[in-house]
């Protein structure tokens, strides 16, 4: 689904030269500082915007993709910030929130465009995140697209056998898709456990988590 510019195009762009830990920490610090600035810190926002633009331009990332992803996420930001209009001084608060939020969002989108998630896992492990958490994240990430594919397949199969548009059938259909997906998920989980055992996991009751 996502192609990673760093690993695939062999990009030597600045962003890719930094280790994943550095990138993750830098992005998080950037976002935290930005978010914690006083609301009307317009000069700071301008500076942040310029920094982001420079890094984006220099990094060799696909600009169209980056922009598209940011635009796709804007409605969520708008949805929440609209509520801020209904108070004294609302317009300025709204604009400030919109700006700050969009800048933070852009930074995180940029991070995910340049860093394959498996690198983020290694970064998390290096930062001593708990084993079970990292394992859950890794397994989830590994099987996410597979499960989404399976879900689409089940959906398609259902659609090809459904000839009615009745509301109640839509709900029923949705529920049985999700139920079937869970059944397949738990069966696959059993098989994965067997595959892990076949390669030595949990010998002597002490499994090595990934």
């Amino acid at each position, binding site marked *: *689904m996502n192609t990673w510019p760093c*690993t695939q195009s062999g990009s030597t762009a600045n962003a890719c030269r930094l280790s994943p830990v550095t990138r993750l920490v830098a992005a998080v610090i950037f976002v935290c500082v930005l978010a914690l600035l006083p609301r009307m810190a317009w000069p700071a926002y301008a500076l942040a915007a310029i920094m982001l633009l420079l890094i984006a331009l220099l990094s060799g990332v696909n600009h169209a993709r980056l922009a598209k992803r940011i635009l796709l996420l804007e409605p969520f930001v708008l949805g929440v910030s609209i509520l801020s209009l209904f108070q004294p001084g609302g317009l300025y608060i709204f604009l400030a929130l919109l700006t700050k939020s969009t800048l933070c969002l852009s930074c995180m989108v940029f991070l995910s465009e340049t860093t*394959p*998630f*498996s690198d983020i*896992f290694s970064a998390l492990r290096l930062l001593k995140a708990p084993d079970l958490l990292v394992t859950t994240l*890794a*397994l989830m*990430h*590994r*099987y996410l*697209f*597979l499960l989404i594919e399976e879900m689409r397949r089940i959906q398609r199969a259902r659609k090809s056998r459904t000839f009615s548009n009745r509301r109640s059938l839509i709900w029923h259909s949705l529920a049985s898709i999700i139920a079937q997906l869970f059944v397949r998920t738990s069966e*696959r989980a059993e*098989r*994965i456990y*067997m*595959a*892990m*055992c*076949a*390669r*030595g*996991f949990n*010998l*002597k009751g002490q499994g*090595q988590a*990934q």
Partner: protein
Amino acid sequence: MSYESKTAGDVAPERVIEIRGLEFTYPDGRKALKGINFSVGRNECVALIGPNGAGKSTLLLHLNGVLPERIISPQRVLVLGMPANSQNLAMIRKNVGLLFQDPDDQLFCSTVFEDVAFGPPQFGFEGAEIDRRVRNSLAKVELQGYENRSPQHLSRGEKKRVCLAGVLACEPGVLVLDEPTSDLDPRGKTELKALLRNIDATKIIATHDLELVVELCPRAIILDKGEIAADGPTLKLLSDEALMLAHGLEVPHIIRHMHPH
């Protein structure tokens, strides 16, 4: 073509796998295996064929100790002369590599390198040794350079090869494969068969791909409804039309063209 079971305790050293009267019932009551007896010698290549639901996958899972979940009768399965009990489980898993049918069940790590490197640490290997094994195994399956690739972006054939590499990284003497060429395109099948031919190990292959059986396995065992229906030389079994039809199989084209009737 029945198999004569050896008397208990009399295990010739070259018998790598020995199965005696193995039975298995699923939790829901279905009897999957009803008294299986056979043995496999060092560096033999044996095909396990039969209709769907015959119990092939279930049998294979016993060869590496994944089944049964609770060991009741360890003497039924002997690997390298040792019974499959909890003490010998580590040794058995190190020596018998199992390749699952669906590579997505077996390829569960986030990168190829991590996945191939999953096995060795479980058996006590560390650091540089793990590295060496991973690179070796990837070379054997002709996937050098794939170390940092993510499983999502691999083709099915590539996934199968990564799984094979993961199994080879433990350097097992016995390779057990469940439907290795299923769902592969013709090129993928040819590539995998070539790889298997070059691997030096005892091989037990459950498959529907009768061409593979003819090409790689001098011996075949027909499994049907949980029992062994036949066990003998491949060409002999596979050209016996009555036998094949009786067990939901067909004489493969290769053999028809070899022996025109």
